[in-house]
Structure formats: structure tokens, C-alpha cells
């Protein structure tokens, strides 16, 4: 600060004061007094307003450099608009932020929001979805599965032009249907199992509501023989039988809106992508996986196929892709993989005579289903 300022002189051309009551600019004379600790604003009618210099703030994010707007923390409404650059440089704390108000309230509501969303996604929606899954009619479930299948096919498409193809070679399809019939035996499912192969190199398989079992071409290519494919199909039929996919799809339908709400403008699309991914890499509960495994062991045993094939498929995938956890997500990311392999081996009846799940020509047809 210079001595000029200390002797009260300040050029105030163009400064206007608004008293916070009437929308009329008042011409003012500005001065710094009391050893430059006080800003003295003398209005056109002689009235004097005093602002302690340390409590004067400049409004942030003002456009243009020609003027700035000052306020005093002791008066929320009054404003001083000035083009005088010296005044601004004389303010010791012009840019200091106001202390945040209502922080406790904000934190309370933040917790409430997180709790509400958590309650919704982890408790209410699953509870409701699990109950709904029991009551949804067969046709409705089928429609839900078809819709979900469509979304997944579109989401997996790289080109963005058309959904990825379903492989429909006639002999291959026949071989698959024979396999499903063999695995089903004389069990009466709630609905027929519809099986499809998607022309995609992902090593994966999943089940959808309405009895859909979907294999990826990559899984058939990675399998060491027909029994391993049969084991995977049996596992997925196990999910279908316990309606895991239906519950899962309904949960997604409930969660999708909530996530869209949270992420706001940014990520309606990202939320959808995220949930589609969740559907494919369906992480069912440990109990659901174990139940599907047990179903598979039993179905394989009844069909005269060694239940050890399921374990071999797991081992096979772990050996080939173990370090790439993303690929066979459904099978490999599960923490208890070793247990599942051991369980499959334990399900083998040492006295039984197991045969292949399908004749060689059917296996060849299945391997070429996408050609």
C-alpha cells in the first residue's frame, strides 16, 4: 500500500453503490480510513457506509475485466460496483470464500440419498424381483427373455449396424436340440428350453428368462470335446430351472432407472451398458451357482455323461484363460472355482459306465454351426 491511500484519497469515478433495498445506483466517494482498515463509502446524500476492509469480498466469476462487484460479509444485499483497480488491490481478503453453511444438513441428506439408493438396489428391488419371478406368466417371461436377448445382441455388436448373428446351421441346431433333450430326460420344466449359439468369439454362456440358454461360438471352440459343452449346457439349464435369470432381469429393470437418476445427464447410456454387461457376466449368488452345478451333475449323470466334464471345462478355461479374467467371466471369476472342480469330480460314480454326450458326427456339426 502506498502513502497516497493512507491519506484517504481514492479516485472513485464510476463507482456505484446499491443499498440492497431499492434498484437505484447511488454515486459514491470512496476512501480508506483508520489506517486503511475501513472502507468508507460516502453516498450522494452525504450518508456514510463503513465496510471493514478485511470483510470485503469480490464476487467471483464476473465477466469482463472493466468492473468488479464488492460485497461486505456483514450485509448480504448491499453491493459496490467499481471500475477502480486500486481498490481491489487494497483488499486483503477479496477472494476468500464464505464459510459453507448447512454442512451438517448436507451430510445428513447425502447419507440419506446413499442409504435410499442402497436400500433400493440391494434390498427392495431384489426382494420385489424375486417375488415377481414366481408370479410372472410363462409367456411374459418368454417376452422378457426375448427382449433381453435382443439388447445383448445389439450391445455386443462392434459395428453398430446390426445385432450379432445367431448361428443356425441345420445339422448343428439338430445336434444341440438332441443334446438338450438328452439332458432334460423326463424332467418336466416350467417351460421348454430354447438354445441358441451366438457368432462371437467370447468364451461364455448364459441363461435368459423364458428358458433361453445361449452359448457363444468361442465356448464351443474352446471346449475339448462335446461333453464339456454338454456340461455347460446342463449348468445353464440348472439356472433356467431355478429362474435365476428371470430374477436377474427383473432386478436390472428396477435398478436401471435408479442408476440413470444418480448419474444424471452424463450416463444414461453408460448405465445401460453396465447393466447389459452384468447380465452377460451374470454373477449369481454362490448358492445359485452351486445349485446349478448340482443340477448339472445330476442331469449329466442321468444322461450317462460323466459329471467330471463340468470340472474339466472349468479347468480347461482356467488353464487357457486364467490370467484373463474378463473373458470367461461367468465361470472364472467365481472365487470358489477349485471347490466347484472338486465337487464335479466327487459327483462321479466310480461304478457307472459313462458314454459320450453325442456322436462324433453331431460334435462335428456343432463345431461348424456358425459356418
Amino acid at each position: 500500500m502506498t502513502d497516497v491511500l493512507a491519506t484517504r484519497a481514492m479516485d472513485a469515478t464510476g463507482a456505484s453503490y446499491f443499498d440492497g433495498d431499492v434498484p437505484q445506483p447511488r454515486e459514491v466517494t470512496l476512501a480508506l480510513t483508520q489506517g486503511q482498515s475501513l472502507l468508507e463509502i460516502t453516498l450522494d446524500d452525504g450518508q456514510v457506509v463503513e465496510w471493514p476492509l478485511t470483510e470485503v469480498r469480490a464476487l467471483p466469476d464476473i465477466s469482463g475485466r472493466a468492473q468488479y462487484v464488492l460485497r461486505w460479509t456483514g450485509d448480504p444485499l448491499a453491493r459496490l460496483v467499481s471500475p477502480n483497480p486500486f481498490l481491489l488491490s487494497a483488499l486483503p481478503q477479496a477472494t476468500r470464500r464464505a464459510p459453507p453453511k448447512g454442512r451438517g444438513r448436507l451430510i445428513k441428506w447425502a447419507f440419506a440419498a446413499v442409504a435410499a439408493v442402497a436400500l433400493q438396489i440391494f434390498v427392495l428391488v431384489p426382494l420385489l424381483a424375486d417375488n415377481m419371478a414366481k408370479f410372472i406368466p410363462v409367456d411374459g417371461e418368454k417376452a422378457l427373455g426375448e427382449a433381453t436377448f435382443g439388447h445383448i445382441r445389439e450391445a455386443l455388436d462392434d459395428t453398430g449396424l446390426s445385432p450379432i448373428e445367431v448361428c443356425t446351421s441345420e445339422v448343428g441346431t439338430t445336434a444341440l436340440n438332441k443334446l438338450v433333450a438328452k439332458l432334460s430326460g423326463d424332467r418336466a420344466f416350467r417351460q421348454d428350453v430354447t438354445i441358441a449359439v451366438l457368432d462371437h468369439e467370447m468364451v461364455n454362456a448364459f441363461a435368459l428368462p423364458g428358458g433361453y440358454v445361449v452359448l457363444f461360438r468361442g465356448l464351443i471352440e474352446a471346449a475339448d470335446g462335446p461333453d464339456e459343452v454338454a456340461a455347460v449346457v446342463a449348468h445353464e439349464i440348472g439356472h433356467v430351472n431355478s429362474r435365476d435369470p428371470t430374477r436377474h432381469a427383473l432386478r436390472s429393470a428396477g435398478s436401471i432407472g435408479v442408476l440413470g437418476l444418480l448419474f444424471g445427464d452424463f450416463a444414461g447410456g453408460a448405465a445401460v451398458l453396465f447393466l447389459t454387461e452384468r447380465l452377460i457376466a451374470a454373477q449369481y449368488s454362490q448358492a445359485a451357482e452351486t445349485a446349478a452345478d448340482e443340477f448339472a451333475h445330476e442331469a449329466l449323470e442321468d444322461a450317462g455323461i460323466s459329471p467330471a466334464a463340468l470340472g474339466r471345462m472349468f479347468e480347461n478355461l482356467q488353464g487357457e484363460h486364467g490370467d484373463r479374467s474378463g473373458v470367461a467371466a461367468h465361470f472364472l471369476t467365481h472365487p470358489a472355482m477349485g471347490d466347484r472342480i472338486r465337487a464335479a469330480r466327487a459327483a462321479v460314480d466310480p461304478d457307472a459306465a459313462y458314454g459320450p454326450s453325442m456322436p462324433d458326427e453331431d460334435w462335428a456339426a456343432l463345431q461348424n454351426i456358425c459356418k
Partner: protein
Amino acid sequence: MTDRSSNAGPWGTPPTAPTTPIAAKAPGWMKVEFVGSRWALFWLALKTGFLTVITLGIYRFWMKTRLRRWYWSAIRPGGHPMEYVGDPIEKLLGFFIAVVILTFYIGIVNLLLMFVSFSVFNSSWVGYLASFAGVIPLWFYARYRARRYVLGRTRWRGVRFGLEKGAWGYAWRALVHWAITICTLGVLWPRMTFWLEKYRTDRTFFGSARLTQAGHWTMLYRGAVPIGVSLALTVVLTVWIIWLAPVFPQTTFAELVSEGWDGLFDEDAELQALADPERLWLFVFCILGLMYGAVHYRWAAKRILANYKTAPGITFHSDVKPPRIAVIYVLGVFLSYLVLTVAILAVILIGAAMLGFDSFLAWFGLGGISAVGDWPRWVAVVLMGMLYLSAFLLWGVLYNTFVTFPIMRHMALTTRLPDYHGLDHISQRARDDFAEAEGFAEALDLGAAI
């Protein structure tokens, strides 16, 4: 007031530098200045946008506040800046409150609707439709509340603006007006525009002074002339091409509807039999006409309505030029896309150079679903999310720079107050203190614009 018709015609004089004629024509009128450069705004938007990406979207409440502060202070009626005093913390709080309330509605209700839709109708679209329809009243409600919040946090010359309560009244009126508009195939649209604007304006205050929307809804038809003409031309063209001199001579209109376009192009023979198919290009002009007509109506209606707004002792005069606005939209959107495309290409090239091209494609080609590579999966997901957010925000920054900024400037510079002696009688109004700020609008994605 009598001067209005001479320079406010919809197709008035071609755009000229706005400041000179105002000064020449109306020395006594209060002018609105616009201060601030496009670059300053660009950097502010870019800076705050970057912080928003870094904070995974939390900073967007600060970004919005700071951008509004900037825009408001740029608009200076009588040389004195408007002031935006909204607080980011209260916006965040409002968002939390809205999430708590809406999460149950959206989650549970959507799930029930989906269940019913699949159980009863065997398809999803009934559910989507119902869940969309259920949000519409909320949407109007949220818009009114958001406007009330913004006006309640706007000051000029130290005096607050304000909007009275009445969000549900607005919501049901809007629903009825929309129903009437849809039932009359859009003919009564100006009636809706007028009455909804009147509802809002008549509840708007500056300090102690209440604003009034005068005039009659039929006056808005002047602004609807371009879209009316475009619609008429489209209908005439359609009649000409389908019935009078059909482009597809062998196909009747009924067949066209029942078989669709696919059936039409199945056989090569029919393709050859087209009569002057180049006439179909005329539809492009019709669509351009319709688009311009929509922009013209929106802004001409704003202008006409502004000219009929008053407060005691205060009148407004707007000279907004719809063609100018249309040019801003076209140029601005084009420029924004251009810069966005260049930026995205640069990111892809840099990313490819750093990661190696194959793994880069493998990573992002599958849209994050299959992360092939040695990096953990969540890294890919987070990076994808960041890229998505960045592109989205860059678009916002560019749109602000090339569209919002010039439109705000044009609006400010074309607005004047012919009579403002009423300012002498205005005093401060009480603070409008409501908890949820614009949380509902934010949560329902209505508040994206400034």
C-alpha cells in the same frame, strides 16, 4: 409502445450491428449491455468441465453455478450486471433430496410397470410408455420449481427477482394444454405457449413489482407463419408425389402403407418404373423449412411475449431476430461437432500410440464388455467412463461457447426497456428459501441447459 409494430415485424430489417440503431432510435430507453469474451467463457467452461470429470460429476453443481454467475454478470441492463447468488452446496443438497424421493418412485414403480407390462402384454413397450407417462407431470413440476429457484437466486442492482409458488398448478395446466394441443393437431399450440408463459410471468416479481403478461394468444400466430407455410408445402408435396403424379406409378397408397418401403424396393423392375424420383429431394427442403419454422416460432413467440410484458411503470422491448438465432444454431452446432470430432480423433490417436494399436482396439472396440489385456478390468471400465464423460462434457463446453454464448448476447443486446420510471417505486422482496433448489430438475435431467 406505439413504436413497437414498426420495428418488431417477424421479418423486419436484415440483421445489422445491434448497438448503433438502438442508440440512434431510442436515446431515452434503457439498453442491455453484454460484457465478456467468448474465450473467457470457454476457459471457464473447460476448467469447470475438467473438474467435473475428475470428480466423477460431483463438481457439476459448482460448474453450473459458476457458469451462471458468469453469464448473469455479462448481462447488464443499464450498465449494471445481473447477479446470480445460487449456491452449489444447496444444489447438491437439493439433488440428494430429490434422489431420496425419486429413487423409490423410479425404482419400485418402474419394476412394477415392467412386471405388469410383461405379464399382461408380453412386451416391454407398454411398461416404458407408462413409466414415461408417469414422469411427465413431475417433469413440468420440476421445471417450474427450477425456474422459481433460479429467479429466486437472481438479483439486479441488489434487488431480488422471484417466482410465486405454484408448481403443481403449472403441471396440471401444462398437461391440459398439451392434451388440447395434441387433440387439435398443433393448431392451438400458440394458445398453450401464451397461457403457460402468462402463468409463469404473472407470478414473476422483481423486488416488490409484479410482472404481467398482456396481449392475446392469437398474436403468436404471426410467429407461426414460417412453420405453417412449411407444413402446407409438405402436405402439398406429399399429395403431389403420392396421388396426383405418383413417383411409384404401379403402387397404390394403400399398398405403400401395407408393404412399407421394403416391399417397394424388393424388385428391380419397380425401381426402373419410378416417375421422376428426383422430386423426392424436395422433401429435404420441406424438412429444412420445418426445422427453421420451429426455431422461428420459438423465438418469435419469445419476442412477441416480451413486448407484451409489463410491470408498473416498466415496459420491455425485444428485437430478437429468429433468422439470426437460426444461423447461430446451425453454425454453432457445426463448429461444436467439428471441434469435438477433432478432439476425439486426437485422443484415439494418442491412445493408440501409447497402448499399441491392437490392444487399443481390443479394449475399446467391444464397448468395455470384454477387456482383453493384462490390465485389470476395472481400469478399462474407469477409463471408458472417463472418456465418455469427457466427450460429453467437451460437447457441453463447445455448445456453451458457440451456441449459448452468442444467443445470450443476441438476446441481451436486442432487449431494451422503453419505460423504466417504475424502478423508482420498487423495493426489496424477501428471500425465497426452499430446500431442494433445482434438485428435481437436476435428477430428471432437465437442468442441463444454463
